[in-house]
């Protein structure tokens, strides 16, 4: 037992402290770098040039106004579904139901095709429809939890499936375009978000998403309602002591989450060119997974509305850049590989927040460090002996 192992242990402990005590923003950046490195190793192993691939990713994501617009367009619905998850996390619950709520919202938004209205009004009606549909789909699990103690994780997952099939039924049989039965009715021009950058997907729906994120920030940090929601999420017993009705905050957070998820569906139906309709054929290719991707965005954004804006831009860039990686120059990377790389990046970025959400994992990690250190110690002892 001399200085050497002591220094090693100090190093290890230093690493440990660094990992667990980083500033959230710095932490996210470190995690992103780790994820990119893992992705690079994976690509290298399978015979692709990581530098060229990442160059393509970067160019495709933020290389110019077209690329920025594409990334922002992709970020739009993710901002909203991420808010769904994060609001409920702030209230101490896991709302896994953004997917179903978003689909119901999309269907409701499509319903504006059933009647005519003046330009802006038509759009607003559609948004209200979507928000109400999302909220309705979200509030049922909340009521089940409040009144019968049903775990919101289970019920929201189940509601995802019910919502998906109900939405598919609506898309195929009810609000279907009789001439093109693979899709729903097309949202009329009067109810569409105008395209902001010609030749791209970026529509004014980005303003809605950013606006909602800012409103949610304001609600959570600058109103008594948000105060109650956060207090109940951080310490339910203290909240109860403080006269906060936790049932009420639960329902409120689920309602807010449902509204944002519903609006996410609306940004697709009313803001995604060229179809401005939802495809029942192919089982919602443009909606599927937006809700779940939103959870990843929320975790990377540390469940903070402003963090989510940044994270969604990053995710939008990953998606937009990933498209370009497929055919960039001499180093085309197949979509499957791109998704593996993205999975690695997302996972690396979500891990710090996952650790925070599940303290048990953190304890395991600490134990791992201790074991690692002990092994080194034993080894160095053996070496000395």
């Amino acid at each position, binding site marked *: 037992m001399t200085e050497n192992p002591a220094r090693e242990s100090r190093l290890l402990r230093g690493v440990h402290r660094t990992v667990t005590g980083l500033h959230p923003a710095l932490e996210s950046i470190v995690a992103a770098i780790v994820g990119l490195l893992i992705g690079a190793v994976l690509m290298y192993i399978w015979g692709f040039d990581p530098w060229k691939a990442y160059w393509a990713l970067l160019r495709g994501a933020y290389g110019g106004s077209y690329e920025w617009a594409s990334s922002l367009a992709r970020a739009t619905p993710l901002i909203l579904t991420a808010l769904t998850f994060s609001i409920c996390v702030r209230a101490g619950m896991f709302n896994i139901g953004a997917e179903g709520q978003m689909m119901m919202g999309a269907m409701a938004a499509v319903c504006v095709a059933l009647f005519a209205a003046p330009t802006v009004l038509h759009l607003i009606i559609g948004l209200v429809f979507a928000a109400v549909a999302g909220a309705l789909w979200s509030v049922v699990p909340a009521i089940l939890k409040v009144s019968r103690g049903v775990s919101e994780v289970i019920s929201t997952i189940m509601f995802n499936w019910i919502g998906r099939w109900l939405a598919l039924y609506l898309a195929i049989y009810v609000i279907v375009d009789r001439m093109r039965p693979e899709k729903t009715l097309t949202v009329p021009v009067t109810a569409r978000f105008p395209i902001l950058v010609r030749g791209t*997907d970026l529509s004014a729906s980005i303003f809605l998403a950013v606006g909602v994120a800012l409103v949610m920030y304001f609600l959570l940090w600058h109103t008594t309602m948000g105060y109650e929601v956060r207090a109940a999420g951080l310490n339910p017993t203290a909240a109860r002591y403080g006269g906060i009705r936790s049932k009420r905050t639960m329902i409120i957070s689920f309602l807010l989450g449902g509204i944002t998820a519903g609006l996410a569906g609306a940004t697709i139906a009313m803001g995604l060119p060229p179809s401005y309709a939802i495809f029942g054929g192919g089982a919602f290719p443009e909606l*599927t997974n937006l809700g779940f991707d939103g959870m990843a965005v929320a975790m990377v954004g540390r469940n903070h509305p402003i963090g989510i804006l940044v994270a969604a831009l990053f995710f939008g860039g990953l998606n937009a850049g990933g498209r370009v990686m497929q055919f960039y120059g001499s180093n*085309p990377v*197949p979509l499957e590989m791109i998704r593996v790389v993205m999975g690695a990046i997302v996972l690396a970025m979500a891990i710090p927040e996952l650790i925070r959400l599940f303290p048990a994992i953190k304890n395991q990690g600490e134990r791992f460090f201790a074991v690692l250190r002990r092994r080194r110690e034993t080894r160095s002892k053996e070496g000395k002996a």
Partner: protein
Amino acid sequence: MELEGADTGIPGGTKEFKEVALKRLLAVTLMLILGVSLLGMAAGKVAVVLDVGGRGDLSFNDMGFKGTDQAAKDFGLQMIEVQCATGADYLPNIRNVARTGDYDLIICVGFLLGDALAAASTEFPNQKFAIIDVDYITGPNIMNFVFRENEQSALVGALAGMSAAYHGYSAAGVVLGIEIPVLWHFEAGFRYGMDWGLKAFAKHEGKAPSVNLLYTYTGTFSDIALGKAASEAMLAQGAVGVYNVAGPLGVGDHEAVAEAHGNLGTLYGPPYFYGVDANQDFIGNGFHGIASGMKRVDTACYMAVEAVVKGQFKAGVTSLGLKEGGVAISKVGDLADFILFGISGGSVSADDFYTIIANWAQNRSTIPGWIWDAVDTLEAGILDGSIVVPTASTGDQIAAVRAQYTLGAP
């Protein structure tokens, strides 16, 4: 002397060097011109954009890739594939490729890409496009390829009707996806073919069989379990087999057939599985797939590339039927092709090549030769134009076909 100098690479002097260089330049230029005139655009590029189904389906998307890939090889082109992770990727992906301006042709495989291509084709008027299964994009720079699925389905319908009658089954089943016009083509053709087959059977046997049509629009192209459930219901109602008209649902349809065989204790014979789009006869080691109504997406893609290379690009709608080789009922030759295709995709073991073909032949032998001959007769009639298979693209049309060929329905 000069040539010698050129060969050794040591020109005698500056003047000779210049001459040699000039001659070489000339030669290269000539060869280039020759090459370009021979192969059209020799160093060209084509892109194939696939929908969210993606590669690995051993059907629509894989065939689109295969046809384009084959054409690229044959004409010496560079080819890339672009897949879409979500529906939101369709338009951006087409735009991204078109923006480069490097591609002589962009092929979009599948009707889901229709709206996106309609938008992109006006944004990039100088870019040539082709799309499969869509007939409504009118731009001067786009070829629409559609298939006369009613023709292949008529052949499958005839086979199904006759085999049901022959084996004493009371019905034939069709499992369809979402009720879109393309699927009406299949239904109309199948109804006509089944009716034709039952009449042929009555003529041959001297008595009219009683065989009903069972069909279901499952409303999905992705829920395999639903396909299986629908197939099980049909088999329980006495269907001789199920015709898969819902792409991936065929896996579920086949599972139902395989389980029915397990319950019956049979290895092959009825009930049968009828494949679609690709040659799916090899599924189940060749024992279950009796025939497939093939829709040669690969042929369409090949034709699109060929048209561009040969300067025969023709905007508008190209309809591919039996005559053009766009649709077909599966034959032994295609089976070999598709088994090889399956082997390359990793879903079939190379060792099983001959086993599958032998099994398939054994399965086919459970249907007598005269029925196969009758199917050939129908095919010949369609080919020479003496038989016109009805089709349907609108609700009214399919209603009319359903009314004409009720096939047991009240």
